[in-house]
């Protein structure tokens, strides 16, 4: 039998104090990021903010600084990134966000193209792909995303509460929210654009992190039958975590393998999406060990529900 993780007796529950400091920090960061997103202060993608995105390539090499300088006059807020490893060389993504009116996007598109054409005479810029989103559509996408997040979080919480006892339900819910907020916070700090795909990633990892928690809780439920005294509650939880540790690590590994290839090979479209998932897998693994279970232990220590 080939094993990465042998039988372990790590005192996870003992380390819960240190972990809780980190977790609270992450959640605080996440709440801050959430406020920024909701108020529209964060770096929203054009799907939420509205705006123009043009992907195009020059015939000859162009320095990104020159392109920025060329567009800075008319579009001071334009975000320009170089698109590496693309079908065509010298490709760039240009984004101009937050149009004032529905018609503004079209005008921006024309002006942007003519500005570039004038600034780089003799080096034609061919548009490969273009996306224009008016303010009204941005508004719709925002409210749809909010509905999707609320609906799925409510359903997940409901399901946990049906499947588990009250305390485990609360703990699993906190762990799930912890993961979503932590990833949101980290992506915010990293300056990633908050767009529909990031929302999708956050919801996906909510489901994923819950899976981890569910597996640990299942084992705790099973093990508690064997423990008879109050003092042993923490021990039971700790050994449950240790028993499922090799499953936790292996699952995280295989998922990381595929999401990692998506991150490195998947290209621009799914780059931020896969990065958010990688963060989510790491944090989800951490939270099932250091967030969900310790909450149950702490609660039991303060207000015993079993073995009275």
């Amino acid at each position: 039998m080939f094993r990465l993780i042998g039988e372990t007796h790590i005192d996870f529950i003992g380390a819960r104090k240190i972990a809780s400091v980190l977790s609270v920090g992450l959640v605080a960061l996440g709440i801050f990021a959430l406020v920024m997103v909701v108020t529209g202060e964060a770096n929203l993608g054009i799907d939420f903010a509205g705006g123009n995105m043009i992907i195009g390539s020059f015939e000859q090499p162009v320095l990104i600084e020159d392109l920025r300088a060329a567009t800075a006059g008319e579009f001071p807020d334009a975000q320009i990134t170089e698109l590496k490893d693309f079908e065509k060389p010298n490709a760039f993504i240009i984004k101009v966000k937050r149009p004032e009116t529905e018609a503004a996007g079209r005008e921006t598109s024309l002006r942007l193209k003519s500005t570039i054409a004038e600034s780089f005479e003799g080096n034609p810029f061919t548009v490969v792909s273009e996306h224009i989103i008016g303010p009204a559509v941005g508004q719709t996408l925002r409210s749809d995303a909010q509905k999707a997040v609320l609906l799925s979080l409510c359903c997940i919480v409901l399901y946990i509460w049906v499947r588990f006892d009250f305390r485990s339900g609360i703990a699993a819910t906190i762990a799930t929210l912890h993961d979503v907020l932590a990833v949101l916070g980290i992506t915010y700090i990293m300056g990633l654009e908050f767009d529909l795909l990031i929302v999708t990633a956050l919801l996906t990892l909510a489901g994923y992190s819950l899976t981890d928690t569910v597996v640990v809780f299942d084992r705790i439920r099973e093990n508690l039958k064997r423990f008879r005294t109050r003092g042993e509650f923490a021990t039971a939880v700790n050994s449950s975590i240790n028993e499922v540790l090799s499953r936790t690590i292996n699952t995280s590994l295989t998922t990381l393998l595929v999401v990692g290839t998506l991150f490195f090979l998947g290209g621009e479209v799914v780059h931020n999406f896969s990065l958010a998932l990688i963060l989510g897998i790491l944090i989800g693994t951490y939270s099932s060990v250091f967030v969900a279970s310790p909450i149950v232990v702490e609660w039991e220590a303060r207000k015993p529900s079993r073995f009275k």
Partner: protein
Amino acid sequence: MSKKNWRVILTGVLIILAFIALWDTYKLWTMSDTEVQAMQDDDPGALLHLQQEAIRLGLDLQGGIHVVLRVKLEELDKGAQTDAVDRAMQIIRNRVDGLGVAEPTIVKQGNERIIVDLPGYTDADRAEELIGQTALLQFKLLETADNGNLILSRLDSVIAEYEAARRGEVSDTAGVAEADSAGMFDLLAESEASDQTTSSDLMAELLGDSVVDTADLFGFDEELGLNEDEYPLTSRLELAFSSSKGVGWPSFAVAKKDRERIDRWLSLPEAARVIPIDVQFAWGTRTEVRNSREVYYLYLLKRKVQFLGKYLENISLRRDPMSGFVVNFSLSGDGAARFAQLTGANIDKPLAIVLDDKVESAPFINSKIRRQGQISMGSSAKIDDARNMEIVLKAGALPAPVEIIEKNVVGASMGADSIRKGFSAAVLGLSLVLLFIGLYYRLSGVIADVGLLFNIFFLMAVMSALGYTLTMPGIAGIILTIGMSVDSNILIFERIREELRTGKTVRASIDAGYDRAFVAIFDSHVTTLITAGALFLFGSGPIKGFAVTLFYGIVISLYTAFVITKQVFDFRKGYRTLSI
């Protein structure tokens, strides 16, 4: 039948169904570009069918245009607001139909928005022009049978010549080339002379030329079957209607699959030269079922605009107990006098109702119409046909102005780039997981690997059978499913290992592994399904693609883990030791 057998039989049936579902996709995806081109030339209908049956690629993967329009209701009167979105959709459908897009979708979103998706079509300016323009409803007369006949027979000969030349090129390039170019010169000389012909010239020509027998074409019996090589065009046309007086009019039923081919022929420069400048071919707006096959109608119209739709008023649909559905309309002032003149001079002739160069219908003029008119849909007409007629007339009378509020143009090279990257990420990700599981859990891992491959196979089959569109986030969903569905196996295997370590027998360990792991696996799958469901309900476009692949991926992974791989493990229960 024993309990084990049903699993084998069910899985066998599913595998066969999956093969059937994926067959068209396999055929299309393994065709080279030149093969696709050849099929496009020879049998565009079959290619279209293949493209419809195969797994569809989203706009982001094959390139295309996605446009969201808003109907500017605030610019319309209260009365005109009802149906405004339907009218705009009808017009857009009309126009998009002529673009040659394999799978256009035009759907209503909310109260005032219309989403138009044109996969594979990347001429943004043309599309925008077509979609954003205000509708133009015109009334035109049909060409006479005699003229129509002559034009068709001329077209037949130039098309036959063109096709023969094309076939010649394909079969024997060297020998035929010379004869070919000679033929071309003949054609040029001939057509230059006829460059300025109008249909009245034709008439004169016809009168002096008794060789062409009009009865030949207009009275031909369908079952006789004209030679396709000699009469490439007319052999594909079936005379659609004649008036009660027994006079034929040039309107034909054309099998749906032939439309693209005929369009191509009619747009040939050689063909354009034999079609008089005051005559035009026009398609009907939509397909209809005629003699149990799907057909388009093709009309030969006089180009001159006889009347404009903007003069119509008070258009309303009624059901007459005697004659079925009728659409009433009225005319006022200037329009009434003109319409009276037009209808008075053309009694018993069909009048084509043309919306943006497509013929909605060509009803016969029964009497002179002054202020009140009525179009009788015929006793067999369905409510949908009548409603369409009403919408078309209203669209011409009360155009619904639209504005573009979202536009996404994805170039073909952008799509190709995404496919390449998505594919390489999927292949590498899958290989890494297969390798890891195979090495870590040995023979059991290999069994799980086979289950994983089945997973992907079934997932593709479901996508194909249910007609879902594959997008880049969809590919990400498949890749994520690979990682997550392995989780079921890991849970089971780790449990079996634990049980084996406690000294249980192979049989007991396998049973305990599956039993104990089931609850955890079930819970985790349900939570992911919830997420996928929420994303499906509220996600747009590409996100929906992600939700769909995730959803089916999870359901299928549950099946493969508990039916397919379980079956193999049941066989292994008798073993003394387990490779795990």
